[in-house]
């Protein structure tokens, strides 16, 4: 009986896979050139759609057999819009900062002519003798692409591209073994939740599996509310099926019948691509009743988050799925035993789910071989702010902050000095140069007063005022506090008022004492992690940049020249 089921899954999947591979090979037949345009939101903001249109028009005008396809984000966001041209006889070449004029030139000179237009090249995507490769960049030494493997290589709106590149193999594999085996594999791999808290994923699944109550649910948390973070957006826009596959596997392992993928409405392109992916997966019987003939049924619905930062907290997210204001609930009971509608519910971050298929495909030993003793696998960071190579970075856990900012990110532009890095968004902290050699994993940043968070990293140069950034983040958490707990609701307000005064030059010497004591109170008196971590930016800036606070208070001066009320303008008569 069991064997029959296994055979059914195998043959159904093989059919799907053969079809996908045939299409993929037809695209890459080695005879015609292929143009890929990076068209995630970051590329679009830089004008990728105009570039794409120019490419299509030129190709059509010249009557060329040359498909132009949209791909996701390669992570080199500083050079958007990106265009990759693969022409037989040449390595695949990635061009950066392309505009419609350059696009036309590329078609004329490279596709028709044989001039690879070296002046616009960013790098080749593979090693070769002709053109320096992106793999020869110093950053390649630190990067390990696991979760981002497909991003920028496949068309996210074509399920066949995903399947042809190994997609849904892990699902077909999982469906042929007992759910407990899947859980065991994930447990042994050491995978921990990528949303920031770092809870062991396998244990969460096991708790949910053993909990009574039907139906069970799997929720993918894509409510990436941290300002300064865009990893989940990029993954959902560039490789949505990897997240769906992780969800179905999680559903099978826990015995869930329904899944929700919760994406912020502020990410319209991610919402669209997830919807397209869902429709395609349903059509191929990878979602729905009797998946691949295994007898297991699982449905996924897309839910758009309505813009409340607190909904990134799992119990608040569940409340919003139930049609309530997103207010956190007391835990325990944890959602794994009592979540959506009081039923057992697994909630995992986008990146956690995207990692699952790799663990099943390559084995837990492989995954646990990456990273540090307690934090396995890779971490994805969104590098932004005052840094040369802004973009998405995936490095093994345990890489130091310095390596990420200076080696991968190439440091601060314009010869300015590095001052701090804001990690983990409003729940994290601002870390100075002195702690940059800390390895990044779930635990080590806590001692420095910050947390890894979901992966946002904003670099600040000497032009950034640390009091102002603390004030800004406090303003954010104050506005986004749901209002349930008194300390979070009123404490953050008091802290914000003090910070407001300081940045206006009206600070008093005793304010710093007051800030620290309020911060401790808010931490202690809040139910959820929004309140518990809200004071972190203030505490870390007080700890590492106290001199800036003092300059504001005692000398009524903003050393970074950012606080407008503290800048005086003079007219120099002799100029």
């Amino acid at each position, binding site marked *: 009986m069991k064997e029959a089921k296994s055979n059914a899954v195998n043959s159904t999947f093989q059919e799907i896979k053969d079809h996908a591979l045939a299409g993929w090979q037809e695209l890459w037949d080695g005879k015609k050139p292929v143009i890929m345009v990076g068209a995630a*939101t*970051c590329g*679009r*903001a*830089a004008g990728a759609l105009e570039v794409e249109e120019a490419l299509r028009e030129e190709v059509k005008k010249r009557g060329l057999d040359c498909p132009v396809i949209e791909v996701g984000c390669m992570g080199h*966001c*500083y050079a*958007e819009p990106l265009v990759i041209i693969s022409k037989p006889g040449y390595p695949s070449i990635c061009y950066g900062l392309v505009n419609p004029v350059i696009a036309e030139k590329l078609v004329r000179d490279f596709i028709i002519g044989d001039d690879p237009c070296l002046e616009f090249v960013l790098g080749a995507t593979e090693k070769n003798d002709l053109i320096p490769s992106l793999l020869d960049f110093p950053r390649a030494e630190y990067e390990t692409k696991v979760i981002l493997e497909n991003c920028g290589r496949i068309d996210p709106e074509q399920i066949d591209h995903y399947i042809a590149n190994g997609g849904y193999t892990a699902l077909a594999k999982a469906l042929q073994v007992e759910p407990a085996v899947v859980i065991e594999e994930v447990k042994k791999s050491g995978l921990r939740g990528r949303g920031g808290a770092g809870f062991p994923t396998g244990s969460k699944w096991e708790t949910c599996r053993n909990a009574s109550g039907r139906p069970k649910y799997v929720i993918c948390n894509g409510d*990436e*509310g*941290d*300002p*300064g*973070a*865009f990893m989940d*957006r*990029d993954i959902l826009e560039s490789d949505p099926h990897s997240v769906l596959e992780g969800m179905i596997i999680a559903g099978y392992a826990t015995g869930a019948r329904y899944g929700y993928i919760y994406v912020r*409405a*502020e*990410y*319209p392109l991610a919402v669209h691509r997830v919807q397209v992916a869902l429709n395609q997966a349903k059509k191929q019987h990878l979602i729905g009743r009797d998946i691949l003939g295994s007898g297991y049924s699982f449905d996924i619905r897309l*839910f*758009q988050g*309505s*813009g*409340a*930062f607190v909904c990134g907290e799992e119990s608040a997210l569940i409340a*919003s*799925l*139930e*049609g*309530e*204001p*997103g207010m956190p609930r007391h835990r325990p009971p944890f959602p794994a035993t009592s979540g959506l509608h009081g039923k057992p519910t697994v909630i995992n971050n986008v990146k956690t789910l995207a990692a699952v298929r790799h663990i099943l495909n390559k084995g837990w030993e492989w995954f646990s071989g990456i990273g540090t003793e307690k934090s396995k696998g890779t971490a994805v960071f*969104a590098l*932004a*702010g*005052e840094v040369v190579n*802004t*973009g998405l970075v995936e490095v093994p856990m345990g890489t130091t902050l310095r390596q990420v900012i200076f080696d991968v990110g190439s440091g601060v532009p314009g010869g300015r000095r590095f001052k701090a890095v*804001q990690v983990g*968004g409003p729940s994290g902290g601002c870390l100075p140069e002195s702690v940059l050699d800390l390895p990044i994993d779930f635990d080590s940043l806590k001692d420095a007063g910050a947390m890894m968070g979901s992966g*946002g990293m*904003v670099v*600040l140069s000497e032009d*950034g005022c640390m009091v102002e*950034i603390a004030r*800004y*983040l406090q303003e*954010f958490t104050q506005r*986004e506090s*749901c209002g349930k707990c008194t300390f979070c609701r009123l404490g953050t307000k008091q802290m914000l008022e003090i910070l407001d005064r300081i940045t206006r030059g009206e600070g008093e010497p005793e304010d710093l004492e007051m800030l620290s004591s309020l911060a401790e109170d808010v931490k202690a008196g809040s139910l959820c992690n929004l309140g518990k971590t809200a004071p972190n930016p203030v505490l870390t800036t007080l700890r590492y940049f106290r001199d800036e606070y003092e300059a504001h208070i005692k000398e009524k001066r903003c050393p970074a020249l950012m606080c407008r009320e503290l800048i005086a303008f003079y007219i120099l008569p002799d100029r």
Partner: protein
Amino acid sequence: MTVEEADVRKETNRALKRFGRKKDNLIPILQGVQGKLGYLPEEAMSEIAGYLGISEIEVYSVVTFYNQFRLNPPGRHSIRVCLGTACHMKGGYITMDAWKRRLGIDVRETTPDREFDLDSVACVGCCVMAPVTVVDGKPEGNVEPTRVDGILLNFELEREKEAKESK
């Protein structure tokens, strides 16, 4: 009941047909209705409450809790200034001031001629293009005050062109 109120109720009911009468659907319903009407007027909220069999105040509490929902009508063009960390540090707040000054309105307001509405957004995830302003749903990178004038000039030219064509 005025004509406008009756229209709102009719439109709302049309949008409601796609959804089941479960409270779970409240947020998708609000998103759908706002997608149709551009905002959530009182009459729409009361129709939704009736449809789901919940009190009007429950609908109102959800509408006012989430940043996505608006209680006043939108302008023809929507301006959303990103005030995420990266945008803020790169002067997003100065861009916001420029928008306010040029449009003569405050955040969450609509110009009297209903041409533009202005709002902030927490982060659209285009941090590498900071400071970002989302104009009619399209993220524009590096929007500094001079670019604000440029975008407005573009709209003005478009309007003039339209006016010419309609003549």
